[in-house]
């Protein structure tokens, strides 16, 4: 493991106005799209929306598709409980997001970009629209053939899943699609599409500004760069913090805990629950536990049964309901822990439920159902007594 000290940084929220971003964009598009994509691949940037797919590769695949129409979509649906970083980014440094989208459009050969904005964030619209108007005009003045528009989300968590997001944008019910085909081949309107998280796109603008080498100075070999975390729960420092990736969880707890931390839920409801005894061996990053940014800290006053119960209620409600393992599985996990708690079923029933969670992990249709096993198994394994008694 690298031994350098990982720390708080302040890059993503560094102020930046439309003109500055246009400057970066116009400079970048003087280079060939292949060169740009190589830089992004070289930077090691991985998606900040949760799944952590290498961004440069995603762009390369999409560029290689032969299609007159392609799209760039910024995923600003941010529905993971305890996450509010994308809102903050769009509120304070939106032009950097526009820049990332434009550079992507140029690189893959797309002329249209859309920001899919979470319904609850509509209050940002007046400001964003104004900025966009100015930005789109500057693009035109600079003869860059790309425009960005905003689409308002439908308010369901599942619409953050990329293929459900496309369905929703096409005016249909937000249900995830079968994969393959992947968005790089058939995304929005069945055309090749790059979909990136808000923060990923900001990182693009920054990489293009400072070069991949500078970017690589931050983070670790497997987790390059910095990342915005939404810290919540039992912490004196609730809020948004930008940190280098690859930090041991023990260091994080030292900085953000209240001295009595018993567990951290890394990656929101769909992430993993790490108990105190594993803090030292857990890395926050792609080599350890990847996260879309949510870090929930629990101290010893918390009931982990209640925590798990809340998560399962959330999934039971937010599952789109189309596939069996997820729609029914979530309900069974929820009712299952309730019945064990009430003593209606024996503690051994938890083992049956874990098997079920593992089935959901491999046979549910999309990431939502597939990830319920993360909180379920990690909480049940580490806090079994709290679930039973």
């Amino acid at each position, binding site marked *: 493991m690298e031994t350098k000290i990982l720390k708080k940084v302040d890059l993503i929220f560094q102020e930046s106005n439309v003109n500055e971003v246009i400057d970066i964009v116009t400079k970048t598009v003087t280079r060939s799209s292949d060169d740009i994509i190589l830089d992004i691949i070289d930077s090691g940037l991985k998606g900040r929306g949760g799944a952590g797919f290498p961004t440069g590769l995603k762009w390369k695949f999409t560029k290689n598709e032969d299609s007159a129409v392609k799209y760039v979509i910024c995923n600003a649906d941010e529905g993971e409980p305890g996450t509010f970083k994308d809102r903050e980014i769009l509120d304070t440094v939106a032009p950097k997001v526009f820049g990332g989208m434009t550079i992507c459009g140029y690189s893959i050969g797309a002329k249209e970009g859309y920001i899919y904005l979470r319904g609850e964030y509509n209050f940002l619209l007046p400001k964003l629209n104004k900025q966009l108007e100015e930005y789109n005009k500057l693009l035109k003045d600079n003869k860059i053939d790309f425009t960005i528009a905003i689409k308002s989300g439908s308010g*369901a968590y*599942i619409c953050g899943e990329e293929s459900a997001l496309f369905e929703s944008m096409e005016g249909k*019910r937000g*249900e995830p699609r*079968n994969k*393959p085909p992947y968005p790089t081949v058939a995304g929005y309107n069945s055309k090749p599409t790059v979909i990136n998280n808000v923060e990923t796109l900001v990182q693009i603008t920054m990489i293009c500004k400072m070069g991949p080498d500078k970017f690589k100075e931050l983070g670790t070999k497997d987790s390059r760069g910095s990342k915005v975390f939404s810290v919540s729960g039992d912490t004196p420092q609730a809020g948004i913090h930008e940190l280098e990736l690859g930090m041991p969880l023990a260091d994080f707890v030292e900085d953000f805990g209240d001295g009595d931390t018993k567990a951290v839920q890394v990656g929101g409801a769909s992430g993993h629950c790490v108990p105190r005894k594993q803090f030292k061996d857990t890395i926050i990053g792609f080599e350890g536990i990847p996260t879309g940014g949510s870090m929930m800290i629990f101290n010893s006053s918390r009931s982990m049964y209640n925590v798990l119960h809340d998560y399962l209620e959330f*999934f*039971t*409600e*937010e*599952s*789109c*309901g*189309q*596939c*069996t*393992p997820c*729609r*029914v*599985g*979530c*309900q*069974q996990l929820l*009712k*299952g822990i309730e*019945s064990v708690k009430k003593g209606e079923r024996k503690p051994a*029933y938890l083992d*049956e439920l874990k*098997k*079920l969670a593992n*089935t959901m992990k*491999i*046979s*549910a*249709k999309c990431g939502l159902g*597939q990830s319920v096993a993360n909180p379920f198994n990690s909480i049940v394994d580490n806090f079994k007594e709290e679930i039973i008694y």
Partner: protein
Amino acid sequence: MSEYLVNLKINNIPVSVKEGTSILDAAKKLNFNIPTLCNHPDLSVAGNCRVCVVEVKGARLLSASCATPVSEGMEVFTNSEKVRTSRKHVIELLLSEHNADCTKCFKNGHCELQSLASEYRVGDHVFIDLVHAKDKIADISSPSISKDDSKCIRCQRCVRTCEELQAVSALAVIKKGDHQRISTFMSKPLNEVVCTNCGQCINRCPTGALTERSYIEQVWNAINDPSKHVVVQTAPAVRIGLGEDLGYDPGERVTYKMVAALRHIGFDSVLDTDFTADLTIMEEGTELLTRLKRALVDGEKVALPMMTSCSPGWIKFQEHIFPELLPNLSTCKSPQQMFGALAKTYYAKKKGIDPKNMVSVSIMPCTAKKFECNRPEMRDSGYQDVDYVLTTRELAMMVKQAGIDFMKLEDEHYDSIMGEGTGAAVIFGATGGVMEAALRTAYEIVTGREVPFTNLNIMPVRGMEGVKEAKVMIKDVLPAWSFLEGAELSVAIAHGLANAKKVMTAVRDGKANYHFIEIMGCPGGCLGGGGQPIPTSPEIRGKRAEAIYSEDEHLALRKSHQNPEVAQIYKDFLGEPLGHKSHDLLHTHYKARIRY
């Protein structure tokens, strides 16, 4: 699909299939059976039930075999431990949200979920019962369809059917998570929404969630009531479908065994809807020629093209979706309703039966006819013209209940009168059949010659293409029809309401120049009707169509105007086509309905 071949291994056995083939179909090629629920050969791929998952070597996730195309070098396992565990979990989960009272269920013995449960022996399934009490109350507002949400597995086959095949979208997915349901506009009862009662969703529902409203008990009661004379009519497509529910392969003609079975069951008069199908040709053909004459000779503004009106699902669709085109519909009742009106008048009189004591039953390939017989317009005999409509499937049940060994029955023939039908009537059961029958008769009336097609087989109007078009040149006409000399009659045929919608949109927008259009509400026509044996697929419907055309070729009389009983009824009772009596008994009117 490309011609490029992909090589893969399934359960260690190599196979080559065309690029784009699903793992499911590739496995079929090797005779590996993978269970499915949401998949259906008539519908787009959903991939939502997850019962068909398989393991692909090297993949973190299992793949839904129905929704995953093969790729080069892929190694698939259809029965690994992971697969078995997942599949069993999926079945157990479905059962945990299912009101599994199989012994009382209409689909008992014909249910895909039940067979899977039985195959995987999930008798001791562990999960908690999630069935909501309120879902156990079925929606029986429609006289055709029963919808029981407690039996629904959310496979969405019905939703895709109603949208993709029928372009009606009466059913949709609502809400999410544990509240997700298949519902209607504002969750209204089925009889208050745009549903056409076509029953296509029933044909594709794997469980007992969507079934026909059954009237078997009422019919048994009538049969067992000595004061009642029970007449039964059988539609053209029943005779080539019924066998499938009684042990035959698709495509078997069982007409005369069916007649024997109906007598065994105890019907007093066993008659044939084919008789009124022939009569329809006389009435509707005359109506078309009259409309053409008024347009061409008298210069009147007449609603053309004229559209057929034999299919009550199609009629209700038109009433909801294209009310502005209602004047274009032929005013002829469907053959079932013509039959009903004549049974309680003409037949009753001839046979000396008091119509008050007559119970009129029809066996139909159709669920929409259950609705149709309850329309207030359908009481022209002074009574409800048709009392009960049973589907082909319900008749098969009655045959079994009566303890009849169907395959061993000796052939028997229909009673007379109203028991005679020509080949032209039989082909009413296939898409294009009404058109072909009409052309066989109309062309001959106008020219005095047979239609110029080998062996009377008008091939351009046959086949399973969604929309068919044909043109018939009319030359050397008889003097009475001189206004048609040199005219080219332009016709179109559509089956399945999505295809009907395409044609109607073109007509409404003035982009179509047809004179006459045949529309059947169901894919393939009545042979694919919502009351026909389940399962259905393009292949099965193809076999049924072959059987229909072969039935036609085996009959001595193949033109409606040759039907001696039809000639007799005009002589003894009706007078002439479109005459006063016909108008009273055989024709009807339509009404506009809401669009949700």
